């Protein structure tokens, strides 16, 4: 996702070299950006998708006390094709990650990913486990990480607000989904002898060959 590194989203547009100096305060473009982002950030549709313990806190966030609807984010869509935001709420296991990647690929752009809780961020307390992926960012581009095990509902809301801030900084002119070219598709990992990331297939083939020559560590 293209990120504008400046402090204020308008700065870069104002100082765009292609814009003549007298038109530097191009009100039209900036307003559209603002309007566009304002609309988007207040009508995020998260995907109704819970993995583990954090999902319970996610449900509590959506419940009366914290009321996600105040932010316009309450419309949880069970279908990825209607969702803008994937909240990875819980431990991502190797058995589950092909499905998560597939769901992500089915989400239309613009799409965002929040890694909620320690497990989704890095595997968390279960990181050492043989069936646990050490963070969903190994496969998907994550926009906001929320530490905590599980994060309080307020912490999740804070993560949402952080994401809103990120959305505010995006500009119509730089975002990838209005650019030409194919949308990024994450290859669905394969459940082989272990979870196999196809982007690293070459590496694995090399390892297998090296192992064959070395014949190290025969199977138990």
């Amino acid at each position, binding site marked *: 996702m293209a990120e504008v590194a400046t402090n204020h989203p308008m700065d870069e547009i104002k100082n765009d070299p292609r814009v003549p100096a007298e038109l530097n305060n191009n009100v039209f473009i900036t307003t559209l950006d603002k309007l566009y982002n304002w609309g988007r950030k207040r009508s995020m549709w998260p995907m109704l998708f819970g993995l583990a313990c954090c999902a319970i806190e996610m449900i509590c966030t959506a419940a009366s006390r914290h009321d996600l609807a105040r932010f316009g984010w309450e419309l949880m869509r*069970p279908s990825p094709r209607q969702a803008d935001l994937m909240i990875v709420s819980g431990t991502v296991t190797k058995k589950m990650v092909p499905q998560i990647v597939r769901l992500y690929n089915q989400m239309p752009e613009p799409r965002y990913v929040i890694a909620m809780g320690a497990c989704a961020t890095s595997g968390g307390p279960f990181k*050492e486990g043989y069936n*646990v992926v050490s963070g969903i960012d190994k496969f998907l581009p994550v926009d906001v990480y929320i530490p905590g095990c599980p994060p309080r509902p307020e912490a999740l809301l804070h993560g949402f607000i952080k994401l809103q801030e990120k959305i505010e900084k995006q500009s119509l002119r730089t975002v990838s989904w209005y650019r030409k070219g194919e949308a990024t598709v994450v290859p669905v990992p394969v459940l082989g002898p272990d979870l*196999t*990331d*196809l982007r690293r*297939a070459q590496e694995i083939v090399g390892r297998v060959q090296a192992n064959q020559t070395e014949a190290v560590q025969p199977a138990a």
Partner: protein
Amino acid sequence: MSETTPAPATATPAKPAPKAAPAARHAEKKPAVTLATMTPEMNAVQQHFGEVLIQPAPFEGFLVTDPAKVRDVALFLRDQLHFEMLSNQTAVDYPAENVIEVVYHVSHISGGRPLCFKTRVPRDESVAVPSVTPVYPGAEFQEREIYDMYGVRFSEHPDLRRILMWEGFNGWPLRKDWKEAYYEGDTKPFDSRWPGGHHKLAEERVPWADNVNYPPGFDPNAYVSNPDGNLYESMLTGTNGHELSAPEIDIGADTVVGVEPGLKTDQIIVNMGPQHPSTHGVLRMVVRIDGETITDLKLVLGYLHRNHEKIGERNTWLHNIPYTDRLDYICGMANEMGYVIAVERMMGIQPTERAEYLRVIMAELTRIQSHFWAIGFVLNDLGAFYTPALYFITERDLIIDLFEAVTGSRMMCNYMRFGGVARDFTPEQLARARELVFERIPRAIDELERLLSDNEIIKARTIGVGYMSAERSIAYSLTGPCLRAAGVPYDIRRADPYSIYDRFDFDIPVLYGGDVYDRYRIRVLEMRQSLRILEQALNQIDQTPAGDIQAGKKAYNHRVPAGQTYARVETPKGELGFYLVSDGGQNPWRYHVRSSSFINLNSMREMTIGQKVADAVVILGSLDIVLGEVDR
């Protein structure tokens, strides 16, 4: 645990070999093995089968020396000695002796300690154990799990595939010599943390896919993954092991409602889950449907398999307490209580009075909030989307607030310790608990009943749906509210009392419908009984000295004497058991969780066949599973 074997039975056991830890671990110390005391029941088995076959096992139970006879023994136990229910089945790996021990715990439905029996097979997978599913259908998932984790094959098992991992996974993960990708050491604490602990990410320290044995010539791009094995084929052709296996024992199944004769229709297979709003997490139901009617259903589990047991065996005894919170994450403290009681039983310590009361208060509050949650989400599944659930989440939030105030965390409380609890209630917190128990929760339950109990929509959708008879429920090892809704008054708090539940005056509610409606109603009744317990506990707790919450000195490096135990508690979901084996060290040798959600799912297939698809969702909701506990 003395060696007072009755006179004739002192024949030298075939394998009294010490449970020696492998050289890597506690090599200096070989705990002496004490053989189990022969109980009258064990003597009866021995008399029937002879001393060669039945011998006292180390620490607990008896050993069936010939694995091929296990099913006969199980049948004898069930039919002659009336151990109607298989509580727990698991395996333990002893690489030093080159055996894997399969452990069974069977219970009387009328109560009492479970009876343990074991059998041993060599680790090279040469010997298959006869499956006990014909005797105890509840063994189906547990045997699949043992196969998945240890590679022990079970002959005549209806559907022996991997259950938590996928088909094609490399190795048997719970074996002691199997190493995961991020393997760092056999036991915690790891040496790399202190005194020279430079932080390094595990994924950098261990390059990708180290410790993974790829078969020679493995090419990821050409590899055809088949994580489910022959699941679809068996369902489509109807050669699903359940119908196929015709063991000599009649399991007495109710007639399975099949397809109506007459019009020939195509049956299709539909996957529900793992991402599906109705599956309460990441469960996958594969259903074969004929129109709207379910003709077969298989569950695919393991999408939340977090390797609880493998990590638990690396952990020290203390480390495991916060991990148990994450088993059934709705009711963390009930899990903690089970684990803590199990370890206390092995260590032979007793918590203080005050701690006992605090534990009971926490466990019962946990039960109430879990039932609130369960009922709310059954309604979600019925289509009353979220509004009723919101009312119950509100009440739950108030209980959770109290948990947070006392323990520091809303869900992952980490409150119980060996010999006590972590923190005492302050007077304000006690006052708040009383406010909740005496005023707020009763009001909330009244409102819940007003809304639901006699509601015609609820009745129309739930009465007669997902029926399971008492006999079948017991056979499937169904526990918890679902079993009691089928007319079996089986509650561990009474059947095998623990903690101080024997002091309280409360009833075990029983209903006889065996359907979704009664499973809902029994939860309401149980909440009321929990309130009764809480009222008594909150009145009596003032008689105990404040602050006296820890027996003995608080320690972090516990050594648990060599031995094994199976301790169980009644969580809101059912019987939660911890089977622990200690070799006398700081870490458990075997740490097994008998999770009620997991085993309750055994019966799901039979409950749903013949029902409509929409009802399958409700049936699942009424079983009230939590995926963290199912997959562990």
